[in-house]
Every structure is written in C-alpha cells, then in structure tokens.
C-alpha cells in the first residue's frame, strides 16, 4: 500500500496506524498524527485504518517562536 507520509510517498504493509508508524520508523517517538487532515489522537491510532493514497502527517516537537 502506498501512502503519502509528510509529503513523500512510502510503502507500508500494515493498514493499522500504530503498526504503520512502527514500520515507518516512528515506533517509540513522541509524535502526533493526522490522516487526510484530521487529527488522530494516540488513543485512536490502533483502531485507525489506512487506505492506499492516504495522507499521513507525523509531527514532532521542534524549535519555534
């Protein structure tokens, strides 16, 4: 399955968001997620299913002002 992760196409085998994040290398990272522009809270990641062509945003703390 191909999904758009932070603007870049990536392949993932898992359709479940939690597992897809692990597969993509975000396993233990402190991140927040959105799928197709909708916020997906941590508690809902395991029940969130991804589909081919979905847009996944993975955001983390960064410097800013």
């Amino acid at each position, binding site marked *: 399955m191909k999904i758009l992760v932070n*603007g870049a196409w990536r392949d993932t085998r898992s359709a479940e968001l939690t597992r897809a994040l692990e597969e993509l290398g975000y396993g233990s990272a402190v991140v927040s997620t959105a799928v197709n*522009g909708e916020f997906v809270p941590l508690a809902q990641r395991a029940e969130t299913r991804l589909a081919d062509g979905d847009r996944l945003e993975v955001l983390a703390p960064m410097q*800013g002002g």
Partner: protein
Amino acid sequence: MLQIYQTQLRSRLMLGTARYPSPAILAEAVRAARAEVVTVSLRRESAGERAGQAFWSLIRELGVRVLPNTAGCHSMKEAVTTAHMAREVFGTPWIKLEVIGEDDTLQPDVFGLVDAARSLCAEGFEVFPYTTEDLVVA
C-alpha cells in the same frame, strides 16, 4: 506577578527557541534569562533523523512551561488540527494561535483567527492569538 488564564508567572518573558547556534546555548539562554515560558513548534518529523525527540528531551530537562504555536497554518481548519496535535504532544492547553494570511509579511488572517479561536476556546484551549493591533478584533 503576571497571570495568564489560571497560571501565575514571575517573569513576563516568553523566550523563543529557534535559531540558537546549539542546543547547549539554547539551554544556557533559558537559564540565564530565568524564563518560565519558552515557545515551541511542531514540524514534520523524519523517521531517520528524529531531531524533534532530542529537542523535546532538552526542553523537559529545563523544566519550563511551553507555549506551542500553529506556525505555518493558513486556514482555520489547519490551525485547529495543529492545535489538537500540539495539545497531545506538549500536554498543555496553551496555544499561540497563528493563521497566516500573507506569507511575505506574515500578516495574520484575522477572520480565520477569530473563527479558530472561538472553536478552540469552546474546547478548553487557552488561546494566545497572533493578531494585529486592531482592538475590535482582539
């Protein structure tokens, strides 16, 4: 003593965290300024680099309050989604709400800002709006 929502602060200084030469100098600056609040942001995280994880560890070690922003958002919808993501990651209801109307000058879109602020306040966020000096908008 400054009171913002229910929080009392001894210092009025809110220190930005961008563009320091190194994390060590950022930490020194926060300590030297005796800042109680630093501003932070959310950006796309690369799985390989994980730059955000190290930054967040540094901020937590400093023991200061954080004020996340919605920098880079151009619509109410984007700003509200980013605010939700920030609340989860940073564990604070505070949000410096930015809805940008014009990229070159970073002028705020005050119409989108007011709509987003209304929505977020209703959800329990404590909003710090990035706005113009227009008192009617404020």
